[in-house]
């Protein structure tokens, strides 16, 4: 049961007792059973948000002021100046750890500020001493210096900054997959923090923000670092990634209810649908080998090993999570996660047949949208029915404009699907009437 429901129940209890529907003992037992509702006041949440945004803006402002490059200062003054913001940031964070170790707002804000000041300090030194423009090294040094803050101060914005930073670093090595694949172990450092954040019921916002950053960064990093030795492998890698996101979002680690608080589940499912939809187009399979991002340098043997390990781990993770849900026989939940498996099957037919992959994904999307619709009807949830309808409509419209299927086949399929619709509709209508 979710938090809101329990709150509502507790509000109702006194009235139920006075009206004699429940006895006081039963009400007390219910309170014991559900436990206390921990709630965090709106003011505290606002304090955290405003404090963090304030720290972020001031930090970025200082970076810009320093970037102006004050040439009237001597080299010595600038060397000292470049350490000052860092020391201020550290002093602030130390004060918070000493005096306000319980305050999430203070910790998040001061850790964010200190994270930015580390960057400002290195940037100003680069400026003063004309350090060569190696952006990758600059970012990586910065990120490694701030990552401990995530754990020492339990702060999520530094973790988000870190994720964005290592993604950018991985991007600067996009032409060198042997280096950029190091993104994965670097990103893994944030996982304990992520699990901790998910468990903090009062910080649903924090977990949502972090998941969002992770989805975006991991997607970019995957394109920078994975599948470089294996043409067309993206059709398996990306569905596997989004499938992992989707199933992680499905884990009941927290009693959050709305979609917006579960970006992993929402974006994971949307990503899987979009990918499966793309896979119903002929050109994806036709030009699969040409679309791959093989670099000019040939990597093979030992140097390609990390790429293989990460890729296989992601695919295996997606398949295992899928199998886990299939075992529970919950088709509505597990079906979106079938895309990686189907992509693997389709991948083996590449070059030999384009019709087989296209058939697989058209049929799959058809079943997927039908399963949404029926699940929605069963649970009398109109929103679910409508998303299923929308998915089906997108699929049908796309096929209507496909030029390479003969009009006769297209016409026949449309008629059959239309009849199917009317029949299911009639059956459902009868059943619903019968239920009443």
């Amino acid at each position, binding site marked *: 049961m979710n938090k809101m429901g329990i709150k509502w129940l507790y509000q109702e209890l006194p009235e139920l007792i006075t009206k004699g529907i429940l006895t006081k003992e039963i009400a007390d037992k219910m309170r014991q059973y559900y436990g206390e509702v921990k709630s965090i006041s709106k003011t505290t949440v606002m304090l955290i948000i405003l404090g963090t945004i304030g720290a972020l803006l001031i930090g970025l402002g200082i970076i810009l002021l320093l970037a102006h490059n004050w040439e009237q200062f001597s080299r010595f003054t600038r*060397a000292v100046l470049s350490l000052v913001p860092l020391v201020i940031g550290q002093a602030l964070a130390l004060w918070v*750890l000493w005096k306000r170790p319980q305050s999430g707002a203070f910790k998040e804000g001061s850790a964010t500020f200190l994270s930015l000041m580390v960057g400002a300090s290195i940037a100003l030194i680069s*400026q003063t001493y*004309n350090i060569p423009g190696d952006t990758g090294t600059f970012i990586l040094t910065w990120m490694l210096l701030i990552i401990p803050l995530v754990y020492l101060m339990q702060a999520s914005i530094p973790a988000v900054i870190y994720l964005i930073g290592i993604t950018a670093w991985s991007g600067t090595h996009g032409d060198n997959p042997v280096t950029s694949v190091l993104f994965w172990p670097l990103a893994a450092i944030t996982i304990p923090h992520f699990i901790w954040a998910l468990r903090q019921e009062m910080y649903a916002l924090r977990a949502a923000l972090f998941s969002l950053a992770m989805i975006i960064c991991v997607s970019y990093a995957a394109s920078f670092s994975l599948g470089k030795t294996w043409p067309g492998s993206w059709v398996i890698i990306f569905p596997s990634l989004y499938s992992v996101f989707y199933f992680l979002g499905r884990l009941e680690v927290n009693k959050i209810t709305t979609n917006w608080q579960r970006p992993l589940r929402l974006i994971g499912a949307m990503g899987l649908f979009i990918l499966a939809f793309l896979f119903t187009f002929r050109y994806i399979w036709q030009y699969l080998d040409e679309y791959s991002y093989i670099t000019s340098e040939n990597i093979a043997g030992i140097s390609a090993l990390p790429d293989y390990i990460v890729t296989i781990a992601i695919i295996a993770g997606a398949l295992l999570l899928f199998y886990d849900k299939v075992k529970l026989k919950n088709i509505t939940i597990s079906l979106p996660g079938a895309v990686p498996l189907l992509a693997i099957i389709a991948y083996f037919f590449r070059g030999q047949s384009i019709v087989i992959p296209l058939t697989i994904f058209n049929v799959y999307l058809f079943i997927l949208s039908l399963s949404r619709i029926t699940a929605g009807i069963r649970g009398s949830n109109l929103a679910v029915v409508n998303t299923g309808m929308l998915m089906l409509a997108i699929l049908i419209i796309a096929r209507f404009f496909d030029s390479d299927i003969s009009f006769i086949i297209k016409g026949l399929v449309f008629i059959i699907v239309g009849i199917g619709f009317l029949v299911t509709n009639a059956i459902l209508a009868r059943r619903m009437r019968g239920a009443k």
Partner: protein
Amino acid sequence: MNRGLIIGLFLCLSFIQITTPLSMIIKRESVLKAGAQFKFKTTPVDPYDAFRGRYVALRLEENYVPAVKEIKLSRGRTVYALITIDSQDFARFTAVVTARPSDKPYIQTKVLYVTGDKVYLDLPIDRYYMEETSAPAAERIYQEHAQRGKQDAYVMVRIKDGFAVIESLYVGAQTIEDALRQERKR
């Protein structure tokens, strides 16, 4: 974790956070103090860096050495570029070696790419940071200067143990800052 331990660990982190930039400063200061001086001919142009501000991008006129058939050099390989001084007092690279030289001046650098008979070097002399408004002006001064047929911009670099730190950028006989100051007076 108790508060004492967290604060202790935080102090360790603070120490590392301070020593990283500090060591960057000390290393460069020591080169600027004790390193030997070299002049490299260059072409300045003006780009922009969101974090570190405006700078003049430097392109050394001779950023390559003749390739030697015996040594196979691939991209990103660390090499040592040997420096000699020509008759006009400018420094230029004569060759690259793969072992650290003991008696000749050199810069530690990486191979950018190899084409035919030339090995291009990824030299650590590529940016000269300037005040926001100065960098575009500096580029313009150089262009005007170059049109008068005098392409004598050069960068003064100090080198110690193969580590190079830029000291100043010259256009003609003046530093770029002096040239700018003079132009503003006019």
